[in-house]
């Protein structure tokens, strides 16, 4: 599941249009747009709003095996051209000086930059980084639900010393839309990683059926989880395993059966 977080509708709309996401009328706290394997939430301006929106949507999707995140938005820059796109590699909270690092899993295809998150709009351009008002709120929240490899932050320059387009909604959308193919590549890459993480989890439905077959103590459940996760990942279908266990009467005998299958399977490395 991929979650896009944008501060403004004009920053979110290129993504919403590209993936044909549909507005959710059920959710009131934030504007939310939904697709098959992704959602886009419009947080409002500021790090607090971004952190709150990220936490809120993570709670909404708490049953997902894994969540991946992209913060898409605009940023100011001293020396970069309007419309330049960056994959943020370091995010600094200007108020606390705390740094966050989204973790690359391949050599980045987009140019990298640090981004300083400010509490207030500013024209005090710094040479060595971009600045925005959300990134640190977004990542500090997202890191509570996902690992740093599943979190990306993409910024397009909307303001510099010579021009300011950040208040023009149509221009902001156009700047981001111009890079939609690069942005899509990031999303595809991230979804593949997310699938890889999610695939290591076992199907929740089979797990519930397994637990219902006997009374397992917490210690037994811990052991059962390890065995079940291994066997489900080894393409030993949950249905066949559940069938095998159906003749066992006790939790202990079920665990013993799964251990026997697991030991036998693992002898071949």
């Amino acid at each position, binding site marked *: 599941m991929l979650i896009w977080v944008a501060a403004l509708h004009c920053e979110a709309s290129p993504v919403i249009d590209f993936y044909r996401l549909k507005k959710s009328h059920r959710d009131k706290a934030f504007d939310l747009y939904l697709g098959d394997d992704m959602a886009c939430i419009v947080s409002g301006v500021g790090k607090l709003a971004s952190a709150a929106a990220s936490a809120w949507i993570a709670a909404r999707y708490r049953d997902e095996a894994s969540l991946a995140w992209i913060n898409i938005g605009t940023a100011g820059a001293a020396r970069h051209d309007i419309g330049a796109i960056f994959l943020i590699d*370091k995010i600094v909270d200007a108020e606390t000086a705390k740094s966050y690092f989204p973790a*690359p899993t391949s050599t980045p295809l987009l140019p990298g930059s*640090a981004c300083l998150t400010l509490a207030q709009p500013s024209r005090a351009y710094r040479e060595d980084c971009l600045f925005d008002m959300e990134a640190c709120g977004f990542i500090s929240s997202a890191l509570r639900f996902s690992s740093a490899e599943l979190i990306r932050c993409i910024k397009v320059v909307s303001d510099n010393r010579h021009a300011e387009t950040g208040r023009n909604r149509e221009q902001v959308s156009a700047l981001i839309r111009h890079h939609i193919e690069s942005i899509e590549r990031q999303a595809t890459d991230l979804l593949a990683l997310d699938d890889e993480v999610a695939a290591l989890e076992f199907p929740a439905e089979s797990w519930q059926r397994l637990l219902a077959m006997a009374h397992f103590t917490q210690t037994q459940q811990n052991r059962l989880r390890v065995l079940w996760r*291994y066997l489900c990942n080894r393409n030993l279908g949950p249905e066949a395993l559940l069938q095998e266990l159906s003749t066992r009467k006790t939790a202990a005998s079920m665990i013993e059966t799964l251990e026997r299958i697991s*030991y036998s399977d*693992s*002898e071949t*490395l």
Partner: protein
Amino acid sequence: MASCIYLESQVRHHPLAQKILERLRRLPVIEIEHFGEVFNPRAQNFRLQKKKPAIIIASKTKGHVLAAPEGYGLGGDYNYYFSHMLNCLYDCRYCFLQGMYRSAHQVLFVNYEDFGEQIRQIAATHRQEPVWFFSGYDCDSLANEPLTRFTEYFIPLVASIENAWMELRTKSTQVRSMLSREPVARVVTAFSFSDRFSHDSLEHGVPSIAKRIDAMRRLIDAGWPVGLRFDPVVYHENYELGFSELLEQVFAEIDADRLHSVSLGSFRLTRDHFHRVSRLYPDEPLFAQNMRLDNGIVSYPPDRERQMIEFCEAQLMKYIPGHTYHPCEWHD
């Protein structure tokens, strides 16, 4: 190739850092204050990072050289270890480094001079007694040699301290830098091997057995002391065949009488490491095998372990003189 470089601002101008940056000049560089900012945070997925780890160029500020754990060594009384890197280029599933750190990034410490100072001090405290310094505990000593130039600094250092001995432990074939210098009798390069079944399944990114044997032979021919490490031996349905074949392959190329030392040990991890690594790789057969927890160590049940070690020792003794053999002792 790494994904990117994290560079501690304090080592930006260090000569070794400059050489590493020059060699990796195509990679993006991200400045950091301290390597722990990137290396230590909780929310990291080691398994995903291991696909293409970043390189962190840093300075080690304390604990440069530490006393080796009990049972670690080659019979010497004074054993220490040091790590000029954290994490390994290779991806061996049985290795405790898989669960040692939260991050899979490779930390390269460039302040060798501080390591050197501590090595000198420790050797001096033991005066005329031999002191062993083991490298390759938290990393592979030679795998990153073109970047780290480890041998360029540490071999002359050890050669200059009369009572210092050093073991480099490696699975790499990066011996060119050693072959370009005069051999030092007190620097032992220990090559680790697993049988071909374990190699194929568990040693991801590790050079082939044949290439490593060749690297080992070239070092021996050049006069360097070389050791063999069959540790860990991993159980599988063909382990007897695999181990016998491995010995045949090794000793077809290597003269056993010219080996400095040979050691052997079965797979074992501390409970914490085992749990961490098995959570990272829940689909890995190695961690689904029949294991026992004994005194904080997860390993094979006693009968199986005894059977494996007895078999492997018997095979090994067909080739090597007994005095070179050092079993890995880890039971109380």
